[in-house]
């Protein structure tokens, strides 16, 4: 089951939620309270949950154990826990209203860093999805109570539908919430979660079936069955946690290695990372899917790795370059390709690295491709690369403002850049904002280059015409 985590609220007050998000939380909580109140007021079968106080208590405890030990996903903004199986078991054993109450115990979760608003939202979200799933289960004729020999296989159909309803509503409600929280505030954009969603949806459905098992074993084993059922749940949790940890470690290592590459150049720190972020912004804006966005993020990160093959004296040369030196610089995308070719990447990412200095008018390098011949990834990276070069400090000039840089992008749009991608980038910038690097306090050293191969405002000067 997906929940919002407390990470977001650390260091920023919840009052930062936009009015829309506030309204949304209030609506979800109100709906949950209304459903509960209506059920308590009119349900003649209320003695069901009450009679089964013992079962309710064990289920609630089980739910809390699962819910309190979630796995933080790569986005750090949402977490996953296998607790959906417990609420589904509650539907079978004590009915929809009982399931609502079990889900709402999430209010008491011992997870750290949750404030009251988040607790209320999580509890209402669980309660609502459990209740709706329970109603679907009842509507399809699913029996409430301890299943016996006669219940199988007839119970499977209604249960499966209930599981789908439960997981869909849970994911839907949380998704809307994440959409309402501006991406810039939450640090990481929702894209990381988007990548995981299909897998999490399937995981939740898979673990939902364990709910049926808890229910089936309950009539013979009671709490004992519940303990036994916890084992596979927690192994899955462990594996998903390991996966997420590895993925974070991977991204961090990649960033660190790219920074090592940057030290060779007179770049401000973090150029690779910002180009990576900018490329991903454009990619999302033009509607690329999760896998491709992921690939372009890595391509953006690694786009300049090949500069290591260019002698430092050439990179940092002050003054015009000889033709040979210029040729050495022109080769850097190819050298980058030679390094990353062995990484099991999408081919597209490789093409993006190789052609990120092509120009729409065909005057770029290394191949001189023009227009649509240039791979889409390369066109995207070119825009983000130039934009970051312009908005960063250089030894020969201060950082340009974002507005100036946008004006320059527009100026070269159509000759150097793909106009559609420039428009997409500007739109994304207006919405998500851009974090300019802090001006580095380094004094321009002697012999520092007064040119930058990425910067259209200070193009490389070559001595002889070619």
């Amino acid at each position, binding site marked *: 089951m997906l929940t919002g985590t407390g990470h977001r609220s650390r260091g920023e007050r919840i009052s930062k939620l936009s009015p829309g998000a506030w309204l949304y939380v209030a609506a979800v909580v109100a709906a949950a309270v209304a459903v509960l109140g209506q059920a308590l007021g009119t349900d003649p079968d209320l003695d069901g949950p009450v009679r089964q106080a013992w079962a309710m208590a064990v289920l609630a405890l089980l739910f809390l154990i699962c819910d309190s030990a979630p796995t933080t996903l790569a986005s750090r903004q949402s977490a996953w826990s296998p607790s959906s199986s417990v609420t589904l078991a509650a539907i079978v054993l004590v009915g929809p209203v009982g399931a609502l109450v079990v889900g709402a115990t999430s209010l008491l979760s011992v997870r750290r860093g949750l404030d009251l608003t988040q607790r209320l939202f999580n509890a209402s979200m669980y309660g609502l999805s459990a209740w709706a799933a329970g109603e679907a289960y009842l509507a399809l004729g699913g029996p409430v109570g301890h299943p016996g020999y006669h219940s199988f296989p007839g119970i499977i159909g209604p249960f499966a539908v209930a599981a789908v309803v439960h997981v869909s509503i849970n994911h839907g409600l949380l998704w809307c919430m994440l959409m309402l929280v501006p991406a810039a505030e939450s640090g990481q954009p929702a894209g990381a979660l988007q990548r995981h969603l299909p897998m999490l949806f399937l995981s939740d459905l898979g673990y939902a079936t364990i709910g049926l098992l808890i229910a089936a074993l309950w009539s013979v084993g009671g709490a004992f069955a519940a303990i036994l059922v916890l084992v*596979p749940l927690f192994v899955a949790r462990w594996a998903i946690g390991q996966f997420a940890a*590895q993925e974070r470690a991977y991204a961090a290592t990649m960033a660190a290695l790219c920074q090592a590459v940057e030290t060779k150049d007179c770049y401000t720190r973090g150029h690779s990372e910002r180009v990576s972020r900018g490329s991903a912004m454009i990619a999302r804006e033009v509607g690329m899917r999760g896998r491709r966005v992921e690939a372009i993020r890595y391509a953006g990160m690694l786009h300049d790795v090949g500069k290591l093959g260019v002698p430092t004296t050439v990179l940092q040369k002050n003054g015009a370059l000889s033709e040979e030196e210029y040729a050495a610089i022109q080769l850097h995308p190819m050298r980058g390709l030679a390094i990353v070719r062995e990484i099991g990447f999408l081919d597209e990412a490789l093409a993006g690295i190789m052609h990120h200095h092509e120009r729409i008018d065909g005057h770029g390098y290394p191949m001189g491709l023009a227009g649509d011949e240039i791979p889409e990834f390369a066109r995207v990276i070119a825009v983000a690369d130039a934009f970051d070069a312009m908005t960063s400090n250089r030894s020969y000039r201060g950082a340009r403002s974002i507005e100036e840089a946008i004006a320059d992008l527009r100026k070269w749009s159509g000759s150097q850049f793909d106009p559609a991608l420039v428009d997409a980038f500007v739109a994304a910038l207006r919405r998500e904002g851009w974090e300019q690097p802090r001006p580095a306090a380094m004094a321009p050293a002697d012999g520092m280059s007064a040119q930058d191969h990425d910067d259209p405002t200070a193009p490389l000067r070559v001595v002889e015409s070619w």
Partner: protein
Amino acid sequence: MKPATTVLGEGPEQAESWRQAMDSGELLLVAAAGMLVVAAVAQTAAVGLVQPRIALAFGALICFGEVLRLSLEGGREAAPIGSAGAFGYAVVLTVGGSRATQPALQVIAVVAAGMVLGALPHLAAGRPAGLAGMASRLIAVAVVAALFRPLSTIVTITRPRDWGLALAAMAAVLVAGWWAECLIRALISADALQARFRVALWDEMRVQLPLGFAVAATAILIAFAADMMGLVALGVFIGPLLVTQMAFRRYAGIRATYLETVRALARVTEVGGYVEDGHARRVGRLAVVVGRELGMSEPELLELEYAALMHDIGQLSLRDPIPGGATVLASPQQQRRIAELGASVIDQAGVLDGVAEIVRYQSWPWRGQDLQPPVGSRIIRAANAFDDLVGSSAETSRTVAALEWLRLDTATEYDPQVVEALAKVAGRRRR
């Protein structure tokens, strides 16, 4: 770019085939399992299949699980769904209220049939059949079946008060089976990789523990649930196990990509002209083999490999390359500076603290300082010097000379234990 051949005269492809080729230990294992299967099938054919419907259902589940094999870290193979089905068949007591009476040999025959059928798609797709892995899984099931089937007439789960005993018995035999599998795999890998057996066993148990835990719990759940749900219980369990499997697969995938990326990016020092072609990879491979010889565990070896691959990354911060890139001939101050710069790069990642530490101390002499560098650093120091001296050449005379050079400096510079391990490894691979 010229192909990176190892100091030891072995290309990467050869090293791979060397790992995959069937060595004597695996052959013995497969032969033993084969004989067991022949005996089981013959016996089952002679007395006839007991309760064929149940046998068929479990066999199908095992076959399905075998198709969805999974590779774990270190090139291990697992089939969690198939194993859960097989263990479940070995410990199931009642199905839909009536007793399950299959004898141990029938369990072995059914499991073997399911595994072989499940391996066929892999063969058709041109992947290796994975006979050794199948054999070790089968023997684990055989251990469980042999221990538990005789008990199945005594243990019952029809009354709740018998549940405790049944659970304890199942858990005990499953632990025994799991341990037998780890033992067999450790023996095989200790034989093939020249690793220490005790270390290999620990590695095996560490890697197999989480999945083994899930598989055993699922097998017990199948056995209990089948009492009420009948064979439907098998279907119910495919879902959750598939999810676990998916998580493990993605985990193994990202681990592989991680190593692949570090390997590729370690080459930036080569492309930049700072070091000789293939230097990082050769040092990486050599360090791992030496580390294994010294009895390091797999997580330690992984850290060592990362550190060895990135040990020269600090050179990127130098304005101009060291002539020839061979740090062995650089001044101690410069060596230390490169190590320090490299460590600070790796520190940036924030997740590779152990690796950064190994890289930081790689330039330290092993003795005579107030602090002894970690064993990984000592290994990289020796492996780096060896590779700087020998390069990609495979000449015996150069190897011998390089080892002699290292031995001369064992008083303070190079750890004699590491140097001896290196000599042993170099000698073994040359032969």
